[in-house]
């Protein structure tokens, strides 16, 4: 036990003391809050820009439609700077007016122009051309303004008063979303998805980084022959266990620091967003219970043990970093193919794909926590996922320890799959 402790201590302290660990631990939270704040900031940017006010309306309807549209585009603002310019033109002068408008856009005097005519009043078509034609939010706002103007014209035709018309067509809708779990309301839906993504990404990253850390550690011990000295003092199983636990503890330390500081940064999100000039959204952090927190850690630890023991086996079977990268590619494929499913699972966390992937030990340590973050998972499914993952871990450890103890003493050419299978059958 004292020897296992000595190995864990060495693995832990040597890594925590390294510069790399300090840098990653420091930049991690900044990075994670960035991936949460930046999309929110971009989302706030997706409200229409001031470009829409800088539009020219070419009105060929001959009904004053253009002026009403200008009012609708400007919204409730009465500022003259927000009012689009209206040019009333005869239908036969339209093409000439358009070419003038194009030049204004080219000279960056105006951001674009919209053409309204009889087809527009009929509710059939309208045209926009401008520098911001690809901005979804700008186009949506102009389209919405045109729809409202058409609606207003029709209501006027059936004899509604101006005031009444405004009352009917003015709908300042603020659409907020919130997730409901079996424990009740659990913060905004957007926040849950971001949180689920962050959890999945964090687990994915940790498994890749620390799996490879273990692999290079094992490889270093093998190539420097330290492994032989250590193996003459402790059984290989103890050495493997010490490595997995020591490096696992490093990963856990880093995750706890990451999660805690990211949480604090997100709490301070409102002032940060305000500094960036973005309006704060109605946004509350997901409510994570202690039990869920413990389950997250359990999935991390089991997933880590599963992958890192296999990475250790790979490290012991090769003789150089380049061989290791090649030999580790099946593991990389397993992890990356799980990563590919993060988004589909976020979009449909209760679908068959999500359910199946959270039972397979290869993907469950990443997929199940994501599902837990975005939806309520039935206890039976959780238990099943943990059960299969635990069995997967035992199998991976069994296989890894057998490859490990033979591989560490084998130098020379890289073993074939057949040779590795034979190692597994060796007694000691």
């Amino acid at each position, binding site marked *: 036990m*004292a*020897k296992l402790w*000595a*190995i864990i201590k*060495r693995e832990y302290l*040597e890594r925590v003391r*390294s510069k790399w660990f300090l840098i990653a631990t420091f930049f991690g939270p900044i990075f994670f809050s960035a991936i949460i704040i930046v999309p929110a900031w971009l989302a706030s940017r997706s409200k229409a820009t001031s470009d829409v006010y800088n539009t020219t309306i070419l009105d060929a309807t001959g009904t004053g439609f253009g002026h009403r549209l200008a009012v609708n585009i400007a919204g409730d603002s009465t500022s003259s700077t927000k009012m689009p310019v209206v040019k009333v033109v005869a239908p036969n002068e339209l093409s000439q007016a358009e070419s003038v408008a194009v030049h204004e856009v080219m000279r960056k005097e105006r951001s674009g122009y919209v053409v309204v005519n009889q087809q527009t009043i009929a509710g059939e078509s309208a045209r926009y051309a401008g520098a911001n034609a690809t901005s979804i939010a700008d186009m949506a706002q102009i389209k919405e303004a045109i729809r409202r103007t058409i609606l207003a014209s029709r209501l006027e035709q059936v004899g509604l008063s101006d005031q009444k018309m405004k009352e009917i067509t003015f709908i300042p809708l603020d659409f907020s979303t919130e997730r409901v779990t079996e424990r009740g309301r659990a913060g905004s839906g957007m926040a849950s998805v971001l949180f689920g993504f962050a959890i999945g990404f964090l687990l994915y990253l940790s498994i890749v980084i620390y799996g490879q850390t273990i692999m290079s550690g094992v490889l*270093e*011990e093998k*190539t*420097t*022959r*330290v492994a*032989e*000295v*250590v*193996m*003459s*003092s*402790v059984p290989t199983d103890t050495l493997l266990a010490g490595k997995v636990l020591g490096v696992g503890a490093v990963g856990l330390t880093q995750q706890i620091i990451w999660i805690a500081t990211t949480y604090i940064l997100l709490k301070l999100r409102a002032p940060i967003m305000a500094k960036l000039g973005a309006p704060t959204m109605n946004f509350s952090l997901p409510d994570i219970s202690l039990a869920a927190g413990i389950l997250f850690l359990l999935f991390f630890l089991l997933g880590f043990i599963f992958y890192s023991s296999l990475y250790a086996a790979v490290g012991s079977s090769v003789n150089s970093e380049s061989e290791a990268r090649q030999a580790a590619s099946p593991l990389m494929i397993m992890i990356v193919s799980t990563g590919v499913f993060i988004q589909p699972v976020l979009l449909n966390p209760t679908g068959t794909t999500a359910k199946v992937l959270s039972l397979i030990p290869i993907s469950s340590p990443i997929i199940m926590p994501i599902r837990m973050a975005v939806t309520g998972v039935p206890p039976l499914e959780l238990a099943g996922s943990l059960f299969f993952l635990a069995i997967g871990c035992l199998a991976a450890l069994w296989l890894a320890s057998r490859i490990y103890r033979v591989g560490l*003493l084998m*130098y*020379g050419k890289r073993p074939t799959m057949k040779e590795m299978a*034979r190692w597994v059958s060796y*007694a*000691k």
Partner: protein
Amino acid sequence: MTEYAIDIVNVTKRYAEHTAVRDLTLRVPTGSVYGLLGPNGAGKTTTIRMILNIIAPDSGSIHIFGRRSDDPKITERLGYLPEERGLYRKMQVRRVLKFLAELKGVNGRTAESRIDEWLERLSLKTAEKDWGLAKIDELSRGMQQKVQFIGTLLHDPDLVILDEPFSGLDPINAQALKDTVVDLKRRGKTVIFSTHLMDNAERLCDSVCIIARGEKVLDGTVTDVKEEHGQRNIALALDGESMVGEILRDHSLVKRVDDSNRFFEIEMAPGADPQALLKRIVDSGASIQRFEMIQPSLHQIFLQKVGASGVEEGMTGHG
């Protein structure tokens, strides 16, 4: 009954393609310096790994100080220096040493004071510089070798196993290692080392075992081994140019000759008379500096017993 430091009985270890060690029996007396000699690929490293319980024999038994080699308590009495050496490159010297000591059951505080003692003894800690605080990869190769000796001996083992300890050592460290071996013996420790350098073995070892192709060829004390191979050898040293080549190729007189240009170690043919050989050489006009009946050197015995055929084809250096 003498307690043996190592008592190996009928041990066999097979790998898929070949048998690394076949039916090996050998006993190392406590307190002796024991040489495990053999060409590359003979099974020395496999034997050492089995003694250290890094790998297990397929059959046979290994006892160390009367206890089974897989007894966890026994590993703390063993010190091991592997053939190819290296340490955690990015780790501080003191921390590496403390880690190695802890793996042998030495507690932290005892380890610290012993580390100081050893660093000073091998001049790695002086008034100007304490290399103990440096990282391994800041050390020269010679210094790293010293650190590795310290790691092997820090827990004051009763049995020290050195695998090819002289390979890659500069003369100063080689001398330091020899001194250490002599010192260990004086303190009643048992030292076993594998080597293919017969000169070192002959000077340092009390007993030797020669193995080839996984089998024991001979063993015993150096004195007994030499006596067994009789006084059938002649040391011949010549001065200046001489024409003795033809005489030495006469198989009625000479069975085998180790020609080192001016020095020859000659094994006489069975029944041949050394005096007849001397006469022939004198008659050839050669100027003789030395003509002496000697015991064969370990080197000669080794060549005689193992020959070139003792080295298996296609083996790595890790027999």
